[in-house]
């Protein structure tokens, strides 16, 4: 039986989650990564994507849409600070559309190649998420 660890999901406006969980899958900038108990200390920035939380063996994962921020794995557990965090169930397509529009503006405004690349990346991911939501 796998053990539980402390997980906190915090957005600037409030603390969304703070509980014992089994496994969390975080959309890191350099790829998704899963965190289980006793993960070695690790820090990564996150990108727009879906964060999955599994509370117990075999249970369905809860999904949260997160955007911008970082994940901090310490000995005490995992803390995800996301600029935006919304349970997928509450996520509206219109809301995403708005963000996509913003992201498009970012792409148009980008001054150097680095920011352009980042903005395009975010835009592509947002569109992906919207597509997958439409299917549900």
């Amino acid at each position: 039986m796998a053990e539980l660890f402390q997980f906190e999901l915090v957005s600037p406006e409030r603390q969304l989650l703070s509980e014992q969980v089994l496994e969390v899958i975080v959309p890191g900038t350099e790829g998704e990564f899963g965190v289980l108990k006793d993960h070695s200390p690790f820090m990564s920035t996150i990108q727009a994507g879906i964060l999955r939380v599994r509370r117990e063996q075999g249970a369905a994962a809860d999904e949260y849409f997160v955007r911008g921020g970082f994940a901090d794995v310490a000995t005490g557990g995992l803390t995800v600070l996301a600029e935006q965090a919304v349970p997928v169930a509450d996520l509206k397509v219109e809301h995403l559309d708005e963000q996509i529009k913003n992201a498009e503006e970012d792409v148009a405004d980008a001054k150097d190649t680095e920011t352009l690349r980042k903005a395009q990346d975010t835009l592509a991911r947002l569109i992906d998420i919207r597509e997958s939501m439409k299917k549900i």
Partner: protein
Amino acid sequence: MPSLKDLRNRIASVKATQKITKAMQMVAAAKLRRAQEAAEAARPYAERMEQVLANLAAAFEGRDDAPKLMAGTGNDQVHLLVLATAERGLCGGFNTNIAKLAREKARSLIAQGKTVKIICVGKKGYDAIKRDLGSHVIKTVDLRNVKNVGFANAHEIGTDILSMYAAGEFDVCTLFYSKFRSVIAQEPTAQQLIPAHFEAAEGASDQGGAAAVYEYEPDETEILEDLLPRNISVQIFRGLLENAASEQGARMSAMDNATRNAGEMIEKLTISYNRQRQAQITTELIEIISGAEAL
């Protein structure tokens, strides 16, 4: 000497005012609770952010390749003051106190020959300083139609400031807001945003061992460069929330005072109204009696 009718009118008017101040006090009390909750809910994020940044920043202490947001431009010629106040008045010394602190700072900077630029968040701050520092105000942010300050509002201001910094329009940025201590005590505060200044994390040296084995993805420099701009918005957001709570607290105690004063005024007026009424009755009686005696 005001006539009886005048007194009656004045009592009625003070009573009406008292009703208004009482209602405002109760509204402020309800809003205060919400604002306080919002400020408390935002605290974990800001605290964690600070902790992580302090840890990361310690690694960069004294290094030349530290990000510009942390190390500064190497100058302190142009100062940007961000003045966060309320959109509405009638809240005691709240707006005045923040403006006063900012004005003192601006004056001393100008006296030292520095250039001062000001961004006003909230209309009342602008009103307070426009007479003597109006020419320094480069921008005002209107949050009039914003019911509850969201992170998006703070982020907008933060992005603005960052792009100005990137364009080299200022060297040092300071945020002025009011810290919420309690309902009756709010503390105007100046906080330096850029270059970012971190309290050396307490016990950072003890955790040095733990921090050293941290793995970073991408590397430390990139994480720090990603986090520092975010931190600006987070700090502004925190300032705005503290401000919102302070404003309601200040308004609540100001309106409580006003209600009490109105009560005292009503009492005084009622006493003189009754005295005058009795005096009038007495005069009338004397007139009747002396009239009857004359017959």
